[in-house]
């Protein structure tokens, strides 16, 4: 099932939760909506699900306009951040719910419902919990039951709102892998919302990075990491060193020092230089385009991490760099730095 969203706008008073959003999701894709809180990702998800309505724009599923239909009629499975399991029903009844409320004409027999529920509980490996109540389950178990419940009605689209947000790190990692394999098995078009970039990059086929109601970039995890399209994407994904620079006629300056790096096409005036920490090479003084003084060194196993002060127009800029341990940096050392890979984006935040 393909999803298409066109020119979607949603406002809450003066606040624009979604600001002219366009998105296409291909059949069978596992898409991540990634962004900080307030970026509009959950709003977008809920509008696709039919739990919220836009102020303007279109939502098409398989080419059909679905905005006239409510959540129940869109045949989507929604997994809530806090599970939203029916607290007074057993696990079995929770999963069976979607099948039991179908109109009489379409409803399956009790036998078939029972078989389907068992099938789903087996799928999430929790059939032994069938008679328990949600309050008796752990967070990870609840999340899997919520997923089983959503899958019971054979949705054409699966939507997950920060599915692992409320779980601790170990459980989160396990469930991530599990979700990926589940998706491969079921081949259902899925969208999940997360603020955790590691999760998005690890699990999804495609990542859509959002900020302030707009899509900053959409691409594969590799794309988004290696070729960030905007300053926001660069700083949100992975660790970045950011330096305020001046671009003049193709010449890049940090303070009054001219850096030996090429300016990006189209950038000029006050800009920012983004370098991944692991892309910043460290050498002796005089080598490389940048020079700074080591201020504080910490050692983590094979790596030394140092605060380096770079002189700039407004005093010093402090950045964090990584160096191999045997470089043996000391407080007060003067080092040369050269970015192996970098991006320059116009404007200061």
């Amino acid at each position, binding site marked *: 099932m393909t999803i298409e969203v066109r020119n979607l706008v949603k406002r809450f008073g003066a606040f624009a939760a979604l600001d002219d959003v366009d998105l296409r999701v291909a059949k069978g894709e596992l898409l991540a909506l990634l962004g900080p809180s307030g970026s509009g990702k959950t709003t977008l998800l809920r509008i696709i*699900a*039919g*739990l919220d309505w836009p102020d303007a724009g279109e939502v098409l599923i398989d080419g059909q306009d679905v905005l006239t239909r*409510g*959540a*129940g*009629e869109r*045949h*989507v*499975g*929604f997994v*809530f951040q*806090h599970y*939203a*399991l*029916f*607290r*007074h*029903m057993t696990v079995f009844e929770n999963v069976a*719910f*979607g099948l039991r*409320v*179908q109109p009489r004409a379409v409803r399956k027999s009790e036998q078939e419902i029972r078989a389907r529920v068992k099938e789903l509980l087996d799928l999430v490996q929790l059939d032994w919990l069938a008679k328990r109540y949600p*309050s008796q389950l752990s967070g990870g178990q609840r999340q899997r039951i919520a997923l089983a*419940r*959503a899958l*019971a*009605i054979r949705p054409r689209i699966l939507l997950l709102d920060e599915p692992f947000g409320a779980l601790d790190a170990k459980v989160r990692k396990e469930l991530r892998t599990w979700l990926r394999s589940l998706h491969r098995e079921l081949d259902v078009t899925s969208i999940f919302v997360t603020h955790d970039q590691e999760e998005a990059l690890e699990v999804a086929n495609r990542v859509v990075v959002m900020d302030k109601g707009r899509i900053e970039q959409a691409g594969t995890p590799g794309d988004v990491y290696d070729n960030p399209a905007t300053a926001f994407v660069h700083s949100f994904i992975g660790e970045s060193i950011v330096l305020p620079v001046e671009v003049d006629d193709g010449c890049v300056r940090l303070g009054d020092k001219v850096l030996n790096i090429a300016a990006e096409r189209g950038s000029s005036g006050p800009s920012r230089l983004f370098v991944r920490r692991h892309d910043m090479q460290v050498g002796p003084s005089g080598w490389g385009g940048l020079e700074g003084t080591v201020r504080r060194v910490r050692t983590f196993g094979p790596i030394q991490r140092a605060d380096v002060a770079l002189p700039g127009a407004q005093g010093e800029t402090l950045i964090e760099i990584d160096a191999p341990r045997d470089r043996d940096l000391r407080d007060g050392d003067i080092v040369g730095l050269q970015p192996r890979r970098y991006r320059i984006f116009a404007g200061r935040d």
Partner: protein
Amino acid sequence: MTMEQALPRYTDASGRSGRKAVTARALRRDPRTEPGPVRWIVIGLAVSFLSVFVVLPLIVVFAQAFGKGIGAYLSALADPEALSAIRLTLCVAALSVALNLVFGLVAAWAIAKFEFTGKTVLISLIDLPFSVSPVIAGLVFVLLFGAQGYFGPWLQANNIHVLFALPGITLATVFVTFPFVARALIPLMQEQGTQEEEAALSLGASGLQTFFRVTLPNIKWGLLYGVLLCNARAMGEFGAVSVVSGHIRGETNTMPLLVEILYNEYQFVTAFAIASLLAMLALVTLVVKTLLERRLDEGQGS
């Protein structure tokens, strides 16, 4: 907490050295509580006040009711007037509870599950009957439906009796018990949020299915609580009903009204017999209310 901290010191003490130690400890007062004598005075005051003003009146009711023995008590209750009053009270209470139950559910759904401006105003309006004197509650219906009321002539022309009949009594009772169910449900439903309902809708349930299968089971204890309080007030209402009922013996006297009439006629045993039924209702209501409150608090914890 503080008492238990104090007690061990005293009970630990033993023998002569203990007594000296006790005195020394008494001088070293626990800064987090009052000195012993003050405590006991406060407790004494509280207990005697409550005993005089609450416990004694309650005991008097039963003492007077059973004053002439069980036989007299039972035959008082078997009196046709008494039976008719009991029937009327039950009928009015059942109607009022039923009506306010539906209203409470409907209002709580509208208020708790949606966002709109004026919510506080609406809730305050629903609370209005609480702040109105019962006599005034009766008065407003007399002004509407009485012989000289706004609808009076029209009602007379159509031979419809609102006042001095069941409809009037029910209306006045509905008025005074109006907020109970809604007030019990609104905070509960607000606290429970809309997630489960949204989940149900996303799974294909209709609005009604969602309400009956998901919402209702979640609020059942709150609903019972509201119904309980509503019923207690409905059965016990005096002022408002007194104004609209007309006190027609055997017809429009509820139990509280009958208590008044019998008491003024010095038929003490009968009056207190009926009063004792109402008092027992009050006690049962309190017990069930406490149990439900515990249940509701537990629910909030999970």
